[in-house]
């Protein structure tokens, strides 16, 4: 009896497992497709908004073209890959006459308010080829001016294109937003990431 089970019944059961497999693949053959057929279809925007793309600047609420950045260099010093480059603004150029006037005023003992350098950086360059998307810059930003973009469809044809001028990008985004008001720039998930 045991021999019968081992040599006759068991092989038949084994072959049955093959039919079960065919049944499963056959079942899935009849089911609808699950892939997203880019570019005819795109993934839903809810999912897209949580995508962590390259780093981008966040504008001020009042002036979206202006970053909240205060050029504190925390991101630059803490970046493990050295992919950020920030150039601080210089104080506005002064004429010799102004200098002279301030000097005199100081000599008179008056309090002189010299024009300070604006806090915003003049340059905010980002090298995407080096970035490892660890988010250390975002963690360490004291004013939350950095975030991950959801720029999933962005491609570049050369390394040079991957050196992004984040200030220019912010200005472009701001221009886009003001051009088409119904296209909101706010990304809830990105905002939450900063929190």
């Amino acid at each position, binding site marked *: 009896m045991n021999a019968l089970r081992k040599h006759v019944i068991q*092989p038949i059961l084994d072959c049955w497992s*093959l039919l079960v*497999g*065919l049944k*499963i*693949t*056959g079942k*899935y*053959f009849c*089911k*609808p*497709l*699950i*892939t997203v*057929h880019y570019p005819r279809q795109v993934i839903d925007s809810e999912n897209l908004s949580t995508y962590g793309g390259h780093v981008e600047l966040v504008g001020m609420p009042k002036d979206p073209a202006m970053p909240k950045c205060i050029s504190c260099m925390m991101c630059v010093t803490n970046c493990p890959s050295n992919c950020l480059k920030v150039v601080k603004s210089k104080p506005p150029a002064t004429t010799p006459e102004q200098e002279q006037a301030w000097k005199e005023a100081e000599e008179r003992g008056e309090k002189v308010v010299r024009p300070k350098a604006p806090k915003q950086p003049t340059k905010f360059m980002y090298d995407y080829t080096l970035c490892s998307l660890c988010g250390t810059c975002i963690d360490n930003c004291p004013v939350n001016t950095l975030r991950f973009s959801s720029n999933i469809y962005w491609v570049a044809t050369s390394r040079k294109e991957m050196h992004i001028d984040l200030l220019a990008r912010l200005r472009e985004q701001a221009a886009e937003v003001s051009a088409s008001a119904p296209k909101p720039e706010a990304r809830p998930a990105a905002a939450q990431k900063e929190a």
Partner: protein
Amino acid sequence: MNEFIQNLIPLVVAVVGSMAWLAVNALVLVYCERKFAGHIQRRPGPFEVGPHGVLQTLIDGLKLMGKQLLTPDNADRFLYWLAPILSMIPVLLLFMPIPYGPVLTGMEVDLGLLLILAFSSFNGLALILAGWGSNNKWGILGAARAVAQTVAYEIPLLLTVLAIAFMTGTLNLTEITAQQAGHIGNWFIWKQPLAFIIFIVAMFGETNRAPFDLAEAESELTAGFHTEYSSMGFGLFFMAEYGYMVVICSICSVLFLGGFHGPIPGIEGWWWMLIKTYALLFLMIWARWTFPRVRFDQLLNINWKWLLPLATFNLLATALIMKL
């Protein structure tokens, strides 16, 4: 002389016809396979070239032709390039004796079945030449597997075919089809169910299709016997593989499923043959995209320990019943 030409013309037409038939079939089958696989895996498969990607295989073929023909260093040039040709040519011949319709037979041969079985063995030779000639260790392993496999699986195939030949008393495929005329009950699948199953299993082994694709076994031997082939050298093997699939499925439908006869009397025609052949082809494709690959010793064990004894038993039983 006149008579010779009269005989020659239909033969040439048949050869050209079967070449075209083979090419069209290969194109359609590759497309169907990729589409079928895609939908099993819940993705669309080829989609970009032509509506729903129907021109994909055509483009792939063109691309293959555009590639450089490479011969590896130290390869045996003659054997290396003989192999794909040797793999392809017999397939054209194999279509000849198969009756696709009441009048759609390339060449009525009394020993049609024998001719097919004899010439299909060329494939084994082509594979070993390819593996040996390309001077590649993976190729040799693939070739060794291919030979052991095709030789082994030919035997149960022959034995099942022999059982049918016993029943019908002929090796002429047209004659075998004629004996299954009438309704579905006359098909030999009912008289020879065991032979049908053995034939189906041996069919996978004979055509090197998954789960028995040991000779190319991508994840083990990189690509087995055709590791070194590029361009149409590979293309010919590829086409031959699909050609053999069509041939063996056609034979299966002739032997067991009544050929061009429909399930009820009166309707017969080439479309029945086409439907049956393609149904079998889809079974092969379906299995390929479902099962893992068997191991080489298991493959031979299935053959020598299961298929061969069962086929012999089936043959003896058939002979006994015929005698009684």
